[in-house]
C-alpha cells in the first residue's frame, strides 16, 4: 500500500493506493496517526481512496478508528473517490450513515 499525505490548512489529505486489508491496515494506522501527532493544528481528515481497489472489514475498521480519533479532536472526516465495490462495502457496514462522501477531493476539502 502506498500512502501519501498532504496538509491543507487544518485538514490532512491522505491518498492511498493498493489494497486495504489486515496487513496494510497496520501500515495505514501507523502512518496516519504519526501525521496527526506531528500536526496538532490539524483537525480534519480527507481520505482519497481513488487508488484503492480492495477493502475488507479490517480496512473498514482502521478507517473507522481514524474517524473516531478525528471526532475526538473535534474535527470532521470526509471520504472521496471510492471505487464502486469499495463504496458498496462502506454502505453495507453502515459507515456511510456517519461519514460523508464527496465525488472529488476539491469538494471534500470544502466540506471538511
Amino acid at each position, binding site marked *: 500500500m502506498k500512502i501519501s499525505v498532504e496538509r491543507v490548512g487544518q485538514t490532512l489529505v491522505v491518498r492511498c493506493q493498493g489494497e486495504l486489508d489486515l496487513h496494510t491496515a497496520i501500515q495505514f494506522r501507523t502512518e496516519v496517526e504519526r501525521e496527526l501527532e506531528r500536526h496538532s493544528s490539524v483537525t480534519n481528515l480527507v481520505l482519497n481512496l481513488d487508488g484503492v481497489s480492495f477493502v*475488507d*472489514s479490517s480496512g473498514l475498521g482502521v478507517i473507522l478508528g481514524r474517524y473516531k480519533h478525528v471526532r475526538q479532536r473535534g474535527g470532521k472526516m470526509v471520504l472521496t473517490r471510492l471505487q464502486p*465495490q469499495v463504496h458498496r462495502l462502506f454502505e453495507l457496514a453502515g459507515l456511510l450513515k456517519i461519514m460523508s462522501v464527496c465525488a472529488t477531493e476539491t469538494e471534500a476539502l470544502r466540506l471538511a
Partner: protein
Amino acid sequence: MQESSARNYIAMEFPNRPENVGVARIAVAALAAQLDFTLEEVDEIKVATSEAVSNAILHGYRGRTGVVKVRAEVDAERLEVVVQDEGQGIADVELARQPSYSTDPERMGLGFVFMESFMDELEIDSAPGRGTRIRMVKVPQRKKKAAEA
C-alpha cells in the same frame, strides 16, 4: 495433462502472517476466474476469503505461531472455499456470527456478516482448543439464472 475430470482445486498452506491474506485472496480469485463469475462476484469472493483467512491468522492463533490451510475447489457449478486453522477455536459460534460482535475492540465484528452476505453457503465448524474450519460455497449468478429458466 489432465483435462477430463470436472473438478479442479488448489490447496495452500502458509504461516499466520498478515501479509499472506493477500496471497491467499489472489490465488482463490485466480481459481474462481475459471468459472463464469462476474467481476463483482469475484470481488465478493475476495472479501469473503480475506475475512476467513484474516480471522484464522488473527483470532485463531492470537499471538502464537501457526499454519493456515486454504483449499479452493471449482467444478462446472460452483466454487467452494475451505479455510482452516488449528488455533483456539470459537466457544459460542452463534454469538460470534452476530453483526458487530468481536472479541477485539479495534475490530468491526463484520467478518462473518460479509462471508454470509457474499457467499451462498457458510458453514462454521469450530471447537475450543481444536481450531476452526470455515466452508463457503458460491454459485455464479449466470448459472443460477440458467437453472431457473
